[in-house]
């Protein structure tokens, strides 16, 4: 399925793209045979452009086949502030739910990776820009707490515009909730691998996404606290080439490594294998 950057691609286009035998690369516009594109995990063979994966696709490709058991599937968002801009928050939620088939912007659960039992969560950028409202915060916190109790390694895959404005300070507090849970998890000896995918910004960067024992990013991923447009507006000058991209963060010592999508599983298994040999200091 072709992922649209802003989550605004009309459903019609999405259907055309997903039903066809060929996929047109969003970046270079080259045609790619659909089966080939899927085999390459939605990376364009011509220009190496990385399409965004849905949370479901992400988890499916990372974990061992048919090993995933979803948790907290029934959690649904509410509209605690009665928020309305040009549309009501309720309406935005309903539209996002219809578009993605999810109640909110994350899927969490347990599964196996290279035979290792892991707790895993992935954000879905297609659902209101992967923004973190209460449901995202709650589900992420619950999976961290479960990983703590069951002594499982934790893998969280981020792609998010940040906190969800429509839930106001409730959203802000999800940053505390998730970060506190990570602090507790680490104190109990848990291993946390944070994977940053395009884009990871705002309140997600400023909470659990940046707290990984090991932080991995996909190539060219936009990662930052403030969005580039906000920065440009503040400093009133244009930003340097490659600013806030994964390669920039690696150079500045903010992430451990950049890993191509097709190597990601292999690298994760290597890390999990390594830490398994050490007994958890619990």
């Amino acid at each position, binding site marked *: 399925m072709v992922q649209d950057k802003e989550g605004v691609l009309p459903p019609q286009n999405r259907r055309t793209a997903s039903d066809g035998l060929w996929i047109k690369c969003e970046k270079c516009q080259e045609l790619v045979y659909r089966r080939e594109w899927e085999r390459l995990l939605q990376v364009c063979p011509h220009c190496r452009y990385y399409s965004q994966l849905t949370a479901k696709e992400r988890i499916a490709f990372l974990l061992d086949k048919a090993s995933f058991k979803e948790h907290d599937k029934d959690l649904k968002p509410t509209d605690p502030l009665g928020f309305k801009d040009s549309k009501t928050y309720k309406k935005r939620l309903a539209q996002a739910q219809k578009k993605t088939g999810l109640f909110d912007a994350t899927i969490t659960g347990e599964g196996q990776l290279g035979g290792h039992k892991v707790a895993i969560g992935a954000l879905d950028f297609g659902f209101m820009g992967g923004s973190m409202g209460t449901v995202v915060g709650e589900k992420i916190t619950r999976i961290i707490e479960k990983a703590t109790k069951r002594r499982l390694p934790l893998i969280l895959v981020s792609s998010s515009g940040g906190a969800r404005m429509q839930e106001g300070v409730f*959203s802000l507090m999800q940053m505390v909730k998730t970060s506190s849970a990570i602090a507790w998890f680490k104190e109990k000896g848990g291993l946390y691998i944070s994977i940053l995918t395009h884009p990871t910004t705002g309140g997600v960067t400023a909470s659990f996404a940046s707290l990984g024992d090991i932080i991995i990013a996909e190539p060219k991923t936009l990662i*930052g606290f403030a969005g580039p447009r*906000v920065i440009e507006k503040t400093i009133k000058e244009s930003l340097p080439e490659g600013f806030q991209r994964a390669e920039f963060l690696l150079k500045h010592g903010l992430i451990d490594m950049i890993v191509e999508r097709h190597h990601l599983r292999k690298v994760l298994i290597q890390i999990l294998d390594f830490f398994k040999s050490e007994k958890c200091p619990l």
Partner: protein
Amino acid sequence: MNKEFDFERPIVEIESKIEELSREETEESKAEIERLQQKAQRLRQKVFTKLSPWQRVQVARHQQRPGLRNYIDGIFEDFLELHGDRLFGDDPAIVTGLAKIDGLPVILIGNQKGKDTTSNLACNFGMPHPEGYRKARRVMELAQRFHKPIITLIDTPGAYPGIGAEERGQGEAIASNLAYLSRLFTPIIVVIIGEGGSGGALAIGVGDRILMLENAIYSVISPEGCAAILWNDESKAEEAAGRLKLTSKDLLRLNLIDEIIPEPVGGAHRDYDETFERLKEALLCHLRKLQQVKVELLVAKRYEKFRKMGRFLEESKE
């Protein structure tokens, strides 16, 4: 001189009339002055109890509103500032130091905003860089090791969105503080004294008690930023301010803060001393209570406090 708000205009008119009359010095004018003063006071009270969220945003950002340095002078004794994060630099937008309140030693962390262009430039308009949050973390560690309670005073538009800030890991600096504060074994009292601007405020905003001055604001995004993104129109900031539920009253109702410190009629900038006295009293009351609680329990309760924040629906348990 206080800068008056538009919504204070009727009061200002009465006050200028009072000023005129006071030059006459007759018996009648004295009686009239007294009547008018009472009227002005009543009117001000009425106006300020009914401020719209957008009006409160303006009060929270008032140039003459007491800032961190005023509170340090007005509430604390023996303040000794500590500088630098030992890694990169000293961020003037965050001030940390040793202080005493009614003789009780505390570690103080706060946001420094300016009152005019020069002082604002000196502290980057109260917008911290990563080194500010890392300086705060350094003194948090000190507080824990020597069992000193922490008081944080929040007044920031937000973390600085700039190139250097991103290069040095603004997101990591904030995230680490959230994690660190949640497991810090010493009492923490957080007070939002002016603007509580999103993650940049939250980075020193995790504690056992969250207090808010009556006209302070606390928000996930500035009303202007919210309007620009959701309405595509910054002029909708007034409407966004209403929708975001960023006033102390809203946040208390939503159980996101613990207590509102009432401000003098007309806002904290009208009467510094009264503001200091009220905040000092509240701080001492909470400090004494928190010091009675075993610190392990305190940390467990702090976790639970934030753990409960949020609203969602759940039909069945797994």
